């Protein structure tokens, strides 16, 4: 379809939240031509999109709406463009968050985002739950995978179960259908969803751009998807 140069271009969505530099560096490392942009037209024209983000869910959604980026994202996904949501960008894929009251998300994946500390307390954990939760955590296939390899055909294809990736977060997402969870992590015994894949949309709670070789491989797989269009 498009000439090779334009189809390999990825739009890193700039909505005034978080650190885009390391995402851009990782894209460059994986051979992508990355453009940091808050222009809906540039997002429509890109071969794929990355939604990064750090900070508060409600503020992030308000920013996306103000810049008309929410509709641009949904339109690009509708067109079948690959999308990577990272950390807050992963949480924004879901229906809603309870962070500071309640806020609607992009609704690309049914489910909600809630406080990690509260979830941990609900499991009966009595000690201090230090928030944000920070660390290199092993990610595993969820129990509903059984003997199947859920990661096949996703951005985690080739990642070894138990591989460690870098997490820093205070909230976590729970898909409405447990089967929608692609990978799980563990905080002091509480297991939670840390990646989802739905159509060509992939989201992860961890930061692949901060996760050394294991993370850069995820960017490389995303880069390969861009050119297959």
């Amino acid at each position, binding site marked *: 379809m498009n000439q090779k140069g334009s189809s390999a271009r990825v739009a890193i969505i700039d909505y005034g939240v978080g*650190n885009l530099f*390391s995402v851009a560096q990782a894209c460059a490392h994986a051979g992508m031509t990355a453009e940091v942009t808050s222009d809906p037209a540039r997002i429509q024209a890109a071969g794929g999109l990355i939604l990064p983000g750090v900070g508060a869910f409600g503020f992030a959604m308000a920013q996306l709406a103000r810049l008309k980026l929410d509709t641009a994202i949904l339109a690009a996904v509708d067109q079948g463009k690959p999308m990577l949501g990272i950390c807050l960008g992963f949480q924004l894929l879901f229906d809603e968050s309870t962070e500071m009251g309640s806020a609607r998300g992009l609704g690309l994946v049914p489910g909600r985002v809630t406080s990690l500390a509260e979830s941990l307390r609900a499991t009966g954990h009595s000690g201090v739950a230090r928030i944000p939760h920070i*660390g290199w955590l092993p990610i595993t296939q969820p129990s509903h995978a059984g003997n199947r390899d859920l990661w096949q055909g996703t951005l985690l294809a080739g990642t070894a179960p138990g591989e460690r990736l870098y997490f820093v977060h205070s909230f976590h997402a729970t898909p409405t259908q447990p089967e929608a969870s692609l990978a799980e992590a563990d905080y002091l015994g509480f297991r939670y969803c840390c990646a989802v894949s739905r159509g060509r949309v992939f989201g992860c709670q961890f930061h692949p751009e901060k996760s050394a070789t294991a993370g850069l491989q995820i960017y490389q797989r995303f880069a390969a998807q861009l050119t297959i269009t």
Partner: protein
Amino acid sequence: MARNLRIIPRLDVKGPNLVKGIHLEGLRVLGEPKIFARRYAAEGADELLFMDAVASLYGRNSLLDVIAATAQNVFIPITVGGGIRSLEDIAAALKAGADKVAINSAAVADPGFIRKAAERYGSSTIVVHIDAKRNRTGSWTAWTDNGREPSHHDAVEWAVQAASLGCGEILVTSIDQEGTAKGFDTALTKAVSARTAVPVIACGGASSPDDVARLGHDVDIGAVSIASILHYGIAAELEREGYGFSGAGEFRVVAEKRDFGRVVPTTLAAVKQAVLAAGLDCRPIAGEEAA
């Protein structure tokens, strides 16, 4: 799963050089920071902490210059501290490739800066750095300006206040122990950990892998930051390999003096083995982590 402990090499930088002192004073030049940084990233460091000894963020050979040179091929989290005074400084640090900033003096001068910074960049981006010095009474005072000026804050109370203002982590350095390799100030670390619910990074005094593991086991901390016991081994190795480095004239150059004090060099691998042996969770050393 057991509690996770991160190991964070700390690189104190003055101008273009990696330096190391004792009690934050008497700085000696060890080499080029990015060489050490890349080595640590390749050896499985969980994060890197860069601290500017003279709080000079900008210009040629400044800390941000060093960060930019490092971040191009180091894909692990990088924290920058020393001289972060404004939201613009934070923006500049993030743009240079940092993921978090560590704020000390500017937060003491204006605690509201912590809240503003956390609101703008997210709590997880903001680390409050406390340089703590023990008093005769058994409490600790927070010092500013890289250990040169005492503040009016009790270090533990200041940690509580900083956490309540929205910082994502607290880095607590014991000035008394820093650079001495005589062990951590465990009581200080314990006091800060017990009064806060954000991850605490302990720094200052690491003498051995077991020392790090013991602190991580005994105190609920998220990370330990270490310097001398890692740097001196690499500095000596670079010198043996004939790595051409000449330090700036105003410092004693370790490669010439071989003055490592009582520090017994070790490796990240040995530190992580000790942490795992103590029953804590820790990202094990992967041989091929070089980006």
